């Protein structure tokens, strides 16, 4: 009898432990589900671009595009833009950056044919040497969707200063002109607001993946 009473108590104790184990297991499954759901709903963030906490409206400016048509703040409304400042006689970093931007635009189009495509805007900081015609030929060599822009330095500064974009043109002699300029790519949203920036060095994949996230997050 003692033996059987002992067994009953043991079985009861084992049942209790089993119930606790099942409860813990169920709780674990429920918590994991919540965590997984929470993780899946966390939006992906751009890895390379710096996104402004609050987009900043651009100041107005009056420049001209490569068709010699006015290019103002309103020209940037209604679509996303990736803006790079440089000059056409720059043999290295300017064409490389424009090429990477064009490739990134193409990559976005390939990965999602319905995705909005950012306009690529190349703004010359060397308007004395970059004529409208040379600018037109130059930007068109990078494919469609690239706009060339030029204008006098005073007018250009209305756009560049608030963006923190630097440029300096120094004619050292009759043959040599030294042009320094910021290497950043500025992202402007469809409301003509300064939204984000990419710092150099630039990569095609970084432009493409981050721009898709940035444009989708708005």
């Amino acid at each position, binding site marked *: 009898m003692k033996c059987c009473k002992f067994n009953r108590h043991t079985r009861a104790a084992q049942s209790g432990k089993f119930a606790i184990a099942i409860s813990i297991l169920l709780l674990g499954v429920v918590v994991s589900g919540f965590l997984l759901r929470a993780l899946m709903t966390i939006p992906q963030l751009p890895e390379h671009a710096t996104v402004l906490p609050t987009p900043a409206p651009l100041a107005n400016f009056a420049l001209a595009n490569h068709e010699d048509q006015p290019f103002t703040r309103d020209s940037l409304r209604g679509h996303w833009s990736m803006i790079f400042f440089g000059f056409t006689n*720059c*043999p*290295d970093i300017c064409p490389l950056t424009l090429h990477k931007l064009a490739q990134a635009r193409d990559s976005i189009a390939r990965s999602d044919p319905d995705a909005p495509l950012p306009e690529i805007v190349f703004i010359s900081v060397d308007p004395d040497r970059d004529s409208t015609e040379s600018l037109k030929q130059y930007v068109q060599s990078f*494919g*469609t969707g690239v706009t060339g822009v030029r204008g006098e330095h005073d007018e250009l500064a209305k756009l560049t200063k608030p963006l923190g974009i630097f440029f300096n043109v120094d004619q050292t002699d009759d043959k040599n002109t*030294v*042009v*320094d300029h910021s*290497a950043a790519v500025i992202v402007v949203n469809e409301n003509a607001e300064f939204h984000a920036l990419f710092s150099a*060095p630039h990569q095609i994949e970084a432009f493409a993946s981050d721009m898709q996230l940035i444009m989708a997050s708005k």
Partner: protein
Amino acid sequence: MKLLVGSLCLLLAISACDSASGPPLEISKVKVYAPLPGTRTSVAYMTIRNNSASAIRIGSIESPQFDSVMLHETRIEDGVARMRMLDGLEIPARSEVFLVDGGLHLMLDQPAASVAEGEPATLQFAYDGNGLVIVSTTILSRFADERTNR
């Protein structure tokens, strides 16, 4: 006698080693690009190897296809792209220097009318007083393989 033979062998071994390592200055992987439309400047990239036991200084570079060939370096300093002309390039002994996009490069200015993709180009590198290396290549079209049309 043994010492003399030994010294002679050592001398021959050093000579063989030097001749086997090729000319003092070797220039390879040369890419000369045609200017992009609307521009009068272009760029060339390459690898320059010094096979000798002492440093070599390239003083000037010329090309019959361009009025001016300048050795340039692009640097990004505090977010600003600065391109500066160098008055020469020293290649340390038994070392390679790479002229690549975004760094050291040759800026080719004011091309002759004949400069176009598929046409020949020649670069002449003068070094250490009398040294001269002449490289001939074919002009390439920049980004031609990857250009987007969308």
